């Protein structure tokens, strides 16, 4: 394998499709602008556009060369700017073999290579045969494992022990119907609607539909439009979750976790334990009352396509099962702690912070649009939301774990390995200084970027306690000494 070679030509098609997926909104816009002109038929626009992308894809395929030399994967790519990627075996963290719809149609696979750096997303081979993929995997893997731990991975060893978790159909359906991507779906729909709106508002269909509705006030009209939107958004998020988390499977191996999921497009992720920075459990606003939550991982160096390292460890799990699952996946994390809460006097700040903007906006709209009085439910709910945030904020620590719990919309409980903390900040606004409160924020590595977890309005000296925990063996200076242990302790995380 020392000669540079090209991928399978199918890579050209998948590159073209990738371009479409990456530029969906400009393409839709372009189509709408383009099709306003009568003399040029719609089909030609689509055919021409796809042809153009196919040419781009083919050029991409032509200019993409790879080879393996001395256990090093070398990739040359780029149309105008040539990029040479050299990935040495000991920097490669994980090699994933996956297959999308296109690849499976031609019996091919995709090879993803994960390194600690940000270049790893460029180092994926879109379409090659299974034999080549396994050969590359074998060459890069065996050397990598050798340098890792030479003694234990000899041939003839018994199959390594592993546990497998799958998502039952009932849970999958619940996950899909309470999916958090609901909001995203709503915004996609709104964008689409704003594009389509000028066309349908002229059409007879639209008038016909409005004729069907009973004579109503503007309020009812708006309400019915909103309801239709919400239903569509819900359907969209239902099916997208169903397709992406169908066939979910979590394998707990000796050294790594393997997560595979997807009905049409199969995704497979391998996460070595030593890359895990933190785990967080998210209990969404709809899921929490039903007793369900999702579990996520933060991993350093890689994650999903968008460069964030948050990985779904398990899409839906009942609160009674969370601790069991975590025990199986991360046995070395201490799960139960005694924790601290923000003091009572902080509650007011939480409520004001949540309600202030919403109330001001509502008042303004109420005044300008002379809205119905029922609109005041929204500010009332936002005060309640602030109260929930206050109630759910908590922090705890033990020898090597820090637990931070807070709420934005979902209640997030994060378990962070103390020695994985990249930095810790303690901040006080002037009101907080006056009230003797503080905010503590922790960053962990996640993908190419970081992810932060914060608890707000803790008692000033509790903030110092948290910082002292992260300091570890570092010198304890005057301001961090002589701190008293916190008084009111609550049991965390509160799951049975």
């Amino acid at each position, binding site marked *: 394998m020392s000669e540079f070679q090209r991928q399978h030509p199918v890579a050209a098609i998948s590159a073209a499709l990738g371009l479409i997926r990456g530029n969906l909104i400009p393409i839709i816009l372009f189509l709408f602008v383009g099709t306003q002109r009568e003399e040029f038929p719609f089909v030609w626009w689509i055919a021409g556009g796809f042809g153009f992308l196919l040419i781009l894809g083919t050029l991409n395929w032509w200019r993409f060369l790879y080879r393996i030399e001395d256990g090093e994967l070398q990739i040359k790519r780029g149309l105008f700017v040539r990029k040479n990627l050299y990935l040495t075996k000991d920097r490669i963290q994980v090699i994933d073999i996956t297959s999308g719809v296109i690849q499976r149609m031609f019996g091919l696979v995709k090879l993803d290579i994960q390194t600690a750096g940000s270049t790893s997303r460029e180092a994926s081979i879109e379409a090659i045969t299974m034999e080549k993929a396994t050969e590359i995997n074998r060459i890069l893997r065996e050397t990598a494992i050798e340098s890792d731990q030479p003694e234990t991975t000899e041939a003839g060893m018994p199959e390594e022990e592993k546990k497998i978790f799958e998502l039952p159909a009932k849970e999958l359906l619940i996950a899909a119907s309470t999916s958090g991507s609901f909001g995203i779906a709503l915004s996609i729909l709104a964008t689409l609607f704003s594009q389509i709106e000028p066309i349908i508002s002229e059409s007879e269909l639209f008038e016909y539909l409005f004729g069907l509705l009973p004579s109503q006030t503007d309020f009812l009209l708006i309400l019915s439009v909103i309801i239709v939107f919400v239903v569509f958004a819900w359907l969209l998020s239902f099916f997208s979750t169903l397709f992406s988390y169908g066939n979910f499977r979590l394998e707990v191996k000796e050294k790594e976790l393997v997560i595979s999921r997807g009905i049409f497009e199969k995704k497979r992720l391998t996460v070595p334990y030593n890359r895990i920075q933190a785990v967080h459990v998210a209990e969404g606003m709809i899921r929490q009352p039903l007793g369900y939550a999702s579990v996520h991982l933060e991993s350093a160096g890689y994650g999903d396509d968008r460069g964030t390292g948050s990985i779904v460890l398990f899409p839906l799990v009942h609160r009674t099962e969370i601790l069991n699952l975590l025990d199986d996946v991360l046995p070395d994390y201490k799960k139960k702690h005694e924790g601290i809460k923000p003091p009572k006097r902080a509650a007011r700040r939480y409520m004001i912070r949540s309600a202030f903007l919403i109330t001001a906006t509502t008042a303004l709209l109420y005044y300008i649009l002379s809205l119905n009085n029922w609109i005041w439910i929204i500010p009332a709910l936002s005060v309640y939301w602030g109260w929930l945030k206050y109630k759910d904020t908590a922090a705890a620590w033990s020898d090597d774990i820090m637990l931070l719990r807070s709420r934005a919309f979902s209640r997030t409980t994060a378990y962070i390995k103390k*020695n994985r903390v*990249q930095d810790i900040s303690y901040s006080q606004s002037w009101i907080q200084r006056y009230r003797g409160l503080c905010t503590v924020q922790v960053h962990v590595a996640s993908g190419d970027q970081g992810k932060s977890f914060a608890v707000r309005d803790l008692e000033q000296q509790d903030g110092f306690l948290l910082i002292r925990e992260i300091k570890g063996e570092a010198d304890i*200076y005057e301001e961090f000494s002589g701190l008293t242990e916190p008084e009111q302790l609550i049991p965390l995380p509160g799951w049975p």
Partner: protein
Amino acid sequence: MKQTPFHKLTPRAIRVWQLGNAVGNLFFFGIPAVYAAIFGMEGFHFWVVSVTSGIIFTLWVLSIVLFPYLSWKNWRYAVDEKEIDLKRGVIVKTRTLIPLSRVQHVDTRQGPLLRWYNLASVTISTAATTHEIPALDAQIADRVRNQISTYARLAEEDV
């Protein structure tokens, strides 16, 4: 009990920030200018333009006369063998601790303005975040950078 070995930034930082703000914040006068260009200066619009201009002018003056000084006064940094401790902020006071074992790389930077005053900033990157100690004397910045990189090498662990 030992005090945290905090250092201040060089007082020349104030001058650099003053100059930077004086030029950089001129941009904000564009807001009322654009508004006036679109809506004109008649009646109600006149008041909008003059009030925003007034506010922006006041802030512009403060950003030269007062803010750089306050910012300098509140900035502290400390580097020891285990961690970097940064303290800053006027209205929101923030203190950040970075364990040295987490530091991935550290470099000094010098824009044209900083070079004119023989200053440099030190940038500290971890796997998650980037922090900056702005406007140190160039020699001190080099020393701090070398110090951090030496300590970081000693404190090396895997990410």
